[in-house]
């Protein structure tokens, strides 16, 4: 195995980096505040630890209005949703118009996914800067679909009357809450894998900040 010459690879153009970090921040806000809102009326027999939720100091809120910061969590959630919506639409529009999706997210199919997934499972899949393997492509498409699902199910929960019968698409109001919860769980799963892989290949982090990183193509 011999490394080729170290070259700078242009990996992410600025619209991708900007919308990536906006979406990253918005998604963390949505998850943290969403967990606090969930805790006010859980749909499953557990609550998230207050310390990992977003919405200000619980004791201050309890003293203030006998409510564990749900008001501020909702304020965060309904502010974060606009950041997420705008960043998501910009990312998708730019990805479609610039050719980013066509060039980098396609082609992808079951055969290449299976090949790359098995290679990854044996720790034999090498990361090439500037190029996505099939597992990455499937994950990126997957999280884009999940965020879209969160936006649509979120609108159904936020405005079940004004957007009626949208809520019936999810089996009613409670169904939309369950879908919104499952979508959150899916995005959390994506984030775990995504961040773990960035830790394993730190230059991808550099590339997403600076747009380029030194790497070349190890053979």
């Amino acid at each position: 195995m011999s490394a080729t010459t170290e070259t700078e690879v242009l990996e992410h153009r600025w619209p991708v980096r900007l919308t990536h970090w906006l979406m990253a921040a918005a998604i963390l806000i949505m998850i943290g505040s969403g967990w606090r809102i969930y805790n006010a009326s859980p749909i499953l027999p557990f609550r998230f630890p207050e310390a990992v939720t977003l919405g200000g100091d619980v004791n201050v809120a309890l003293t203030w209005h006998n409510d564990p910061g749900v008001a501020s969590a909702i304020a965060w959630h309904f502010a974060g949703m606009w950041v997420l919506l705008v960043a998501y639409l910009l990312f998708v529009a730019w990805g479609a118009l610039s050719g980013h999706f066509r060039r980098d997210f396609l082609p992808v199919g079951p055969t290449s996914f299976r090949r790359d997934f098995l290679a990854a499972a044996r720790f034999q899949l090498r990361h090439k800067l500037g190029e996505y393997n099939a597992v990455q492509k499937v994950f990126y498409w997957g999280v884009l679909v999940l965020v879209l699902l969160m936006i649509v199910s979120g609108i159904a929960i936020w405005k079940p009357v004004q957007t009626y019968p949208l809520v019936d698409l999810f089996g009613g109001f409670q169904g939309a809450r369950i879908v919104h919860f499952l979508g959150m769980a899916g995005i959390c799963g994506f984030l775990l894998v995504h961040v773990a892989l960035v830790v394993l290949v730190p230059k991808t982090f550099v590339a997403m900040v600076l747009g380029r990183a030194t790497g070349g193509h190890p053979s």
Partner: protein
Amino acid sequence: MQSILARFSAWNDRVQEMLFNPNKLAPTFPESAAVKDFRYNAWYDAKSAPALDAASYRLSLSGLIGNKQPWTVEQLHALPQVSQVTRHVCVEGWSMIGKWTGTPLRTFFERIGADTTARYVGFECADGYYESMDMATALHPQTIMAFKLSDETLPRKYGYPFKIRVPTKLGFKNPKFVTTIYVTNLRPHGFWTDRGYNWFSGI
């Protein structure tokens, strides 16, 4: 940070006002879907709920209203009534379908000569609660003064003699034990809005 969140909340008020369709009805359900033992919800326990006496109760009217004569329970009950089986959605996420019966606020406003071109309607309640809403929502056909829950006179803990039932808004915008209704062009406060919740809170 609080001021940024407050700006987003004000922006959300405007968006919701635009989204609100005065002709769009909240979905209704068969009577069999209505929960009989409706969830009690307040910041105090049910035993502390105000006990208003039908004989001495008076509904006060103020602000931009033609005839501000106070109303007795008997007079209120004589108003034409309609029923609805709709979903009450709490800001905390739980929801429950109930059957409410009462007089459309629009009908009442016509009787008392309320200025329906004014922007807001405010409510004051016997338990210290206070709420308000935009005029468009107040005039919505499903916004009613609910005298009954599940075909029975509204029990004390649910807000006797009446609550404002508004299925196009979150539960906390449905004030109970209403003692004063006023019409105004200055946006009134709300109990939970003053504690950080969004004012419009439409659904």
